[in-house]
């Protein structure tokens, strides 16, 4: 009743706050301005969001590229290769790690991963660090949904494969994985949503330079980190611009989650 109204209120507010930026600045400028200096001289700030958009994109894609295969492999391991006790322990650990706060991951990344990368090539805080940490964070999500999807594969499929003399790997690869694909895909999409929306970990390990990265070792700034870094002192138009970037994030994540719903329905059909 009233609760529903509150929910609607929040959404409406978010939209309303972005309108000023959208109307005064215009979407084109978010993509084509020379740079991002919203607090720039007088009222002539520039609002190019592209470096941050690219940053978020690279970070998420990179994380997914690592986490999805590793997560699916972990799931296959858990369901088909691990002896019972080991599988249970593995699953429990995944569940535990899925609950670890992002700030802890970011902290660990900062004190352990970054120095290691720095030894390879300074400064250490980089796109690579971000990708690695994000991959670690979303891996439990991918793995747990993949495990559930694999567990839901009907026994009859597996029995049929065994009866045909298919080995473990062949069964897993050619029978179980295809059958579990919708579920695995949802897991990957959820992981993507989480990666895109992640703030603290990327804030802590990515260096936060506003630039389009040209190598893995370049520092980079994600869209989320951008909001976090600047909201403290942003005024009027600047803040409005931040709200716009917030809206972009919401749209992307909402899209990903809508895809999850659709794939989920396919799985039940």
């Amino acid at each position, binding site marked *: 009743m009233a609760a529903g109204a509150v*929910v609607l209120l929040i959404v409406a507010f978010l939209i309303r706050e972005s309108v000023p930026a959208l109307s005064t600045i215009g979407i084109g400028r978010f993509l084509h301005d020379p740079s991002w200096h919203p607090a720039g001289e007088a009222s002539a700030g520039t609002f190019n969001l592209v470096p941050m958009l690219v940053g978020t994109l690279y970070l998420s894609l990179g994380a997914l590229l690592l986490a999805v295969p590793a997560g699916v492999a972990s799931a296959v391991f858990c369901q088909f290769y691990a002896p019972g006790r080991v599988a249970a322990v593995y699953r429990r650990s995944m569940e*535990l790690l899925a609950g670890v*706060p992002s700030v802890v991951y970011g902290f660990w990344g900062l004190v352990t991963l970054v120095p290691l990368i720095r030894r390879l090539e300074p400064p250490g805080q980089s796109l690579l660090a971000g990708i690695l940490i994000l991959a670690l964070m979303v891996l439990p999500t991918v793995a747990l949904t993949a495990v559930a999807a694999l567990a839901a594969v009907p026994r009859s499929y597996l029995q049929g494969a065994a009866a045909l003399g298919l080995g473990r790997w062949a069964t897993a690869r050619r029978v179980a994985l295809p059958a579990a694909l919708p579920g695995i895909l949802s897991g990957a999409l959820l992981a993507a949503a989480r990666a895109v929306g992640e703030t603290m970990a990327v804030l802590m390990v990515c260096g936060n330079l506003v630039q389009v990265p040209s190598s893995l070792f370049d520092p980079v700034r994600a869209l989320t980190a951008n909001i976090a870094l600047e*909201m403290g002192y942003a005024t009027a138009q600047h803040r409005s611009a931040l709200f716009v970037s917030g809206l972009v994030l919401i749209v992307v994540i909402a899209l990903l989650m809508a895809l999850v719903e659709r794939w989920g329905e396919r799985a039940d059909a």
Partner: protein
Amino acid sequence: MPEVRRGPDRLAALALWGIALGVMGTLGWILVDLLRFGLGGVSWSFLTEAPRDAGRAGGIGPILVSTVWILAVSLVVAVPLGVGCAAYLAEWAPTGAPLGRAVRRSLDLLAAVPSIVFGLFGMVFFSQILGLGFSILAGGLTLACMVLPILIRATEAGFRSAPQELRRGAAALGLSRGAALRHLLLPAAVPGLVVGLVLGIGRALAETAALIFTSGYVTRMPSSLLDSGRALSVHIYDLAMNVPGGEGNAYATALVLIVLLMAINGTASWAAEAWLGKGWTR
């Protein structure tokens, strides 16, 4: 499952075991680091004293208190709203009523909002427009917004788990909707509510970015809800990023946070099992 026989099988098995161990290893690395560097710092005095020297020394006493207060505020606000909304969705608007559909869509949307955007919203709405400034109240209210979708979804599932014959029986006896809700349906929804609470608290405790700008950075013991207060997660962030030499206490604080989360999860699992046995309430 047939035994591993041929080459490709053997290779696959090796690769999978390797990946699994690699993953476990990395994640284990994190946990081991936490224990190694953090355990030493955790002690009774750590848990009760105030931080000194920008947090390098001393403890996290006031910070724990602030965290609890922020959590309390968010729950006090989110639980009634969440249960009310869930009851509405489950009992009054299950099939396609327009308001129900609008609420559900908004909830889905809300669940897609990243935490930093909540922080932005909270800062502008609660801290500035409502004039709460940097305060536990502002932080708690912002967290309430974040936790609401989770609570509602889980509690609604709880309501739906009540069999339809319960509602028909109550109606046939001339019990009003409200009476049926209070005495019969609410108790049935409690397990769902508990699940929602656990998930919500987990999210709330893990939240950092949103809190930095709403409940603030202050490390003093808060004396009222309008005081600024630092949450555990914010403390870890501060020690990690802004305080050189603060890693030791950051590890210790992180350990405390994780233990807290595990304790909450554990209590909820235990409570859920205790409830599952009984099919009835007083």
